[in-house]
């Protein structure tokens, strides 16, 4: 079993969150097309969103987007600048920390929202 290191975890997480976001995108575009059918259809979707299961999903989505987005920016930075390459470990740690902090703050807010 090869040792799993921080960079490799970020690579795996990037894949997983990517797949999660694409799945949501499919669901979201479908939801939007429903919504455009009128107020009743729209409210049905909104009501469904308010169930705990969907809320939980929404929190997870927030986490996925935060990580995927920030980590993606880190990857871009790391591939385009030597400056970032020299500091790739530090930037990786920062990515985890910023994504984590925003996830906790945003996640709580999202969960509490009506």
């Amino acid at each position: 079993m090869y040792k799993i290191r921080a960079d490799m975890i970020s690579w795996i997480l990037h894949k997983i969150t990517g797949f999660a976001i694409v799945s949501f995108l499919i669901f979201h575009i479908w939801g939007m097309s429903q919504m455009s059918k009128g107020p009743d259809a729209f409210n049905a979707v909104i009501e469904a969103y308010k169930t705990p299961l969907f809320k939980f999903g929404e929190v997870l989505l927030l986490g996925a987007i935060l990580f995927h987005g920030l980590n993606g920016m880190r990857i871009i930075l790391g591939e385009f600048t030597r400056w970032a390459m020299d500091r790739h470990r530090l930037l990786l740690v920062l990515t985890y920390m910023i994504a984590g902090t925003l996830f906790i703050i945003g996640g709580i807010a999202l969960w509490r929202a009506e």
Partner: protein
Amino acid sequence: MSSRGSKGWLLQRISGALLFITLGVHFYIYHYFMGPGMWGFESIGYGANDLETLRLMAESDPTQARFYALASLFAAPVWKVFDILFITLGCYHGFYGIVANIEDMVTHPTWRPVLSWLTYFAAFILWVMGVVTVISFNPQLF
């Protein structure tokens, strides 16, 4: 060899960076801007008359206020453009990501292109669905 990767790689990074920005705007608008505050959107391209109609409709049926509020935004031409851009970037970036994963893991000479093209096809369907929804949306119809 016709198969290349540099363009795809670069576009994936550009679309990713743009998505990072557009997603921020999208998220902000739809989650924190939604509600009474958003009635001030005349300034960004929505006709005062149309807005007035929506406001009246919302007042006559308060339970549907949220829908009308969102619809007012959704119907604005600027936001239509924004949403189409957003859908395009999302479909491209997301599905190219899947194609990249297929190329990472599938080496079979037949399955590799078949799976990739199926993914591109699915992306196209989804994109059409999204764009049609955005363009055809007209709250006046309700």
